[in-house]
């Protein structure tokens, strides 16, 4: 496999950013990691994952769809779409990489979302294998191997060198563009590191969580479960879980009146909000119980029902870490599960 010494990472980033925009996870002052546009001198974060997920690159929180300009009786419709520039996201973890597959199923299915596709076509996802998974990780539940992430190209570190391999044409093109910095390397040590990571993954507290008893055919058992009341009673109805989630894809489209025109934009929506999917007749989910149920039913039942059994969760653990009252998909699965 091709490799580069870890102390030459700066050179690698400089080389990538010379030809296209590069985003890497960097540490913020408060210790959390976030993706930043690479500038010389930035250090790659050693954190396991970024606070916000990587879905922002393809599905940003807000995005302008179309502008209307009004002059007298005339309304001019302005298409604000522009061809996205090429960009590379470096250091995406296995869970987030899988989330793109899930988002693709939503946005690239007919009718194709051209805003999303534009960015997807121009973005190269370079993943990074995990070596220090944490207690909130449960990607294994969804068949994800944190030591062998997907993505256009994948990187693995053995503590001394960074190994890179391509998974598809886009990834190969990426590697070709930096090949002058790479050399052939021996992967014996790397294999030992990966084996060790897999050992750790098995020892994690959530390693035994399975989706065996969930799926598209479990609608009635779970929808009418009497556990929902107890599970949702302390839910604050905030949107933290949905906004840090790499796979939550619900959005709302709104018009903003600028005083001299209209900007039609879309923004993330959260099923936890009281005005989620509000229609002319009002709101279909009147209580927090129903809204809470929607989120988990969507991930564990509705999504697999519509997508050949694929679940709408990747086990990144962000909601486990961030929920203000620590109610999360793992607790829901454990409480709900009927064996």
């Amino acid at each position, binding site marked *: 496999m091709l490799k580069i010494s870890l102390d030459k990472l700066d050179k690698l980033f400089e080389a990538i950013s010379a030809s296209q925009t590069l985003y890497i996870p960097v540490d913020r002052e408060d210790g959390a990691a976030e993706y930043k546009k690479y500038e010389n001198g930035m250090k790659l974060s050693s954190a396991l994952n970024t606070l916000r997920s990587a879905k922002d690159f393809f599905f940003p929180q*807000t995005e302008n769809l179309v502008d209307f300009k009004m002059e007298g009786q005339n309304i001019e419709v302005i298409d604000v779409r522009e061809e996205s520039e090429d960009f590379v996201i470096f250091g995406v973890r296995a869970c987030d990489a899988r989330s793109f597959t899930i988002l693709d199923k939503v946005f690239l299915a007919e009718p194709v979302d051209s805003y999303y596709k534009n960015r997807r076509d121009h973005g190269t996802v370079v993943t990074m294998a995990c070596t220090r998974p944490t*207690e*909130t990780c449960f990607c294994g539940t969804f068949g994800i191997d944190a030591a062998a992430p997907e993505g256009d190209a994948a990187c693995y570190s053995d503590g001394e060198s960074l190994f890179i391999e391509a998974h598809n044409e886009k990834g190969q093109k990426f590697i070709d563009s930096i090949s002058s910095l790479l050399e052939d390397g021996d992967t014996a040590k790397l294999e030992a590191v990966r084996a060790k990571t897999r050992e750790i993954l098995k020892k*994690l507290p959530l390693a035994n969580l399975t989706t065996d008893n969930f799926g598209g055919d479990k609608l009635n058992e779970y929808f009418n479960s009497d556990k929902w009341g107890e599970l949702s009673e302390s839910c604050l109805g*905030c949107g*933290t879980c949905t906004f840090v989630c790499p796979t939550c894809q619900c959005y709302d489209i709104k018009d903003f009146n600028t005083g001299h025109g209209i900007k039609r934009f879309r923004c993330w929506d959260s099923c936890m909000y009281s005005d989620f999917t509000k229609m002319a007749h009002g709101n279909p989910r009147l209580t927090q119980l129903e809204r809470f149920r929607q989120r988990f039913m969507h991930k564990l039942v509705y999504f697999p029902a519509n997508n050949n059994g694929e679940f709408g969760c990747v086990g990144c653990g962000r909601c486990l870490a961030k929920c203000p009252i620590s109610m999360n998909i793992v*607790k829901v699965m*454990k409480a709900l599960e009927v064996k």
Partner: protein
Amino acid sequence: MQEAMINKAKQLLADGTVDRVIGWKRGEFAYDITPAVFETAEELEKEFVFDDFTAANVSKYLVKESKKEGKILAFLKPCDTYSFNQLTKEHRVVRENVYIVGIPGGPKLDAEKIKAKGITGILGVKNENYTLKIDTVYGEETMPFYEAILDKCATCKSKKHVVYDELIGDEGEVLDSNRFDMVEKLENMTAQERYDFWRGELSKCIRCNACRNVCPACTCEKCVFDNPNSGVENKAPADSFEENMFHIIRAFHVAGRCTDCGECSRVCPQHIPLHLLNRKFIKDINSLYGEYQAGEDTTSRAPLNDYKQDDCETTVVHERGVE
């Protein structure tokens, strides 16, 4: 303490004083504790928890719970009693339906602070003489207890319970806290520095509304930011202006009612120091209109519902501090 609380709850359930108990429920890990309502002794035995991570203020749940049939037992920490009192004052809770047992307060721990030290794979956390022994997937780690406490506990204002039906443990005192230090530090910066500071912080906002929804003072049935007819409803900060507007209005709407319980900053997934906005209002109210602690009593007039004929003019803002 946990034992004493469970026994007290069981006793009050058994003798019919209360029908339900609100407290905290154990989670998957050491720190992921969820507020919960218990109805039976068995549930209490199995899941009730009170430890260094039970920081959540349960007062706000009582808005809903106290309107249900029967009486509910609430275990309130000193800071929680201020919130409860304020809610009583605003007629948002039915006082008669709540049996309050005052319990000692923090300092409580912040799992995020432990994680920020690079300690990952946390399986268990033990406090041994104010050193945390943290059992992780990668072996045992230690860190000083006081480096992992919540910000809201580090600037605790009072250990006194302002309302209770009975107490477990000793009654504390109102503390001489340093809670306005950071506000003062910001006040002494230049306008440009303050602007840069707040832009840096507020631009992190993802508008999850956790700060608003957790706030015991935010109890509007329909928030102006959720109301499509208000003209300011928005689900995402589409522009920096909207970030500013949301946080100014959020803090303003609880000005004079905020007890400084610190929940807003505790729950912020982006670690924005939102309590500083609330404290700025508290500090201003104290210095301009006289010392006032929201939640201390249930009868006094709130500073923004009150006035004096010789109040200062708005120009006071122009006359002090750094431009």
